[in-house]
């Protein structure tokens, strides 16, 4: 029986992109359902009643939510082109860094985007400190996964596209090629991977969205 795969996503969700990449890297066919989060479809609410968010992967009618949980599911269900290493310790490290991206790096980068003045001045070194951990972990490898991209690369992948946009919108350089040579090279290599290159959201639309997010967060409270 052919697998029935559906992905619920938005055009801009970095988390949904992880799922798209994983499915395409494994050569899997799937149907895409684009959601408008201001008007969530009854299906999305039925498939993800707990978080009511994208991405959701539905495999033969069974829904799975939370991007890292979905990635593990994809990895365990389809063995081709493995995304996680075989060794349990290497797997633990891959999971640790993926979690680090979501729990520490992401918020510290958002903090730079949505603040200004003194608050932003404080946010920038925090984001750079987190980026430094990533820089050290890369250890001169092409990707975290080695010669090909893997679990951690997929988790971190949004930075290759989003960080330059955030830099453009805020006027703040986060990835200085002198200070972060490995990340700079990683970003270049990552963007060169065909599956990655083919799936970035439209650039101008994304710049406008991120600009809009910044303006909305900086708008004085109490105004409409």
């Amino acid at each position, binding site marked *: 029986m052919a697998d029935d795969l559906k992905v619920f996503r938005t055009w801009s969700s970095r988390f949904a992109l992880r799922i798209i990449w994983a499915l395409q890297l494994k050569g899997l066919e799937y149907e895409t359902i684009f959601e408008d989060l201001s008007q969530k479809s009854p299906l999305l609410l039925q498939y993800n*009643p*707990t978080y009511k968010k994208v991405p959701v992967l539905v*495999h033969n009618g*069974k829904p*799975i*939510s*939370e991007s890292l*949980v*979905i990635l*593990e*599911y994809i990895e*365990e*269900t389809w063995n081709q082109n493995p995304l996680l290493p075989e060794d*349990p*310790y290497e*797997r*633990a490290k891959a*999971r*640790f860094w993926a*979690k*680090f991206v979501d729990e*520490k790096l992401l918020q510290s980068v958002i903090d730079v985007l949505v603040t200004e003045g003194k608050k932003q001045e404080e946010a920038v070194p925090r984001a750079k400190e987190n980026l430094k*951990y990533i820089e050290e972990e890369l250890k001169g490898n092409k990707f975290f996964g080695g010669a090909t991209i893997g679990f951690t690369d997929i988790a971190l992948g949004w930075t290759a596209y989003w960080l330059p946009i955030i830099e453009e919108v805020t006027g703040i350089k986060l990835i200085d090629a002198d200070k972060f040579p490995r990340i700079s090279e990683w970003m270049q290599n990552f963007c060169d991977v065909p599956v990655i290159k083919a799936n970035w959201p439209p650039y101008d639309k994304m710049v406008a969205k991120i600009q809009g997010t910044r303006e909305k967060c900086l708008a004085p409270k109490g105004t409409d």
Partner: protein
Amino acid sequence: MRVEWALRLKGVEYEYIEEDIYNKTPLLLELNPIHKKVPVFIHGEKVILESFIILEYIDETWKQFPILPRDPYDRAMARFWAKVAEEKVMMNAWRSICTQFEEEKEGYLKHAMESLEKIEEVLVQGKSKFFGGEKIGYLDIALGWMSYTVPVWEEVGSMKIVDPILFPSTAVWMENFRNHPVIKDKLPPRDETVVYCQRISKEIGARMAAARKG
């Protein structure tokens, strides 16, 4: 606790090093410089951090008494509900205990209970003693903190979190978990935990209030 339970279930011997999280040792800070937290699991020369990641490592390294289910979908559900319990039940219930503001207390508790309802449903549908079936599994270990922490929080906060009338299956599960041979003699002493919790919740409540003003 989670790491110890998993090792004990698998019959793996280990050494335990107690840390005071308000007075961390240099060794801990060296082993976990990024998060500066426990647990830290050391296997030979390998250092593994983050309790859910440690659980997966333990399950992949010692194959006896598997704690994650075999089926990928069941595994995904176990991981998902573990995350929900951590983010939505634990965080909200704890904030509800700590906050000094009544309306916040009710709000946080309501959020915790919304997720508790879903977890109750998982138990009801599973129709078995534990989330893992007849034996303890990953999700039982992930949620196990509830079995001894929730009664303490309820006492400290003078509030009901897992009301047995609203969450009968969860209440029974907590009792079964507490009484499991591997868990039973490893629970922290209740009175000390209550005193500790009273102190910490007041400190955090004060911090939350200060953050609200600032």
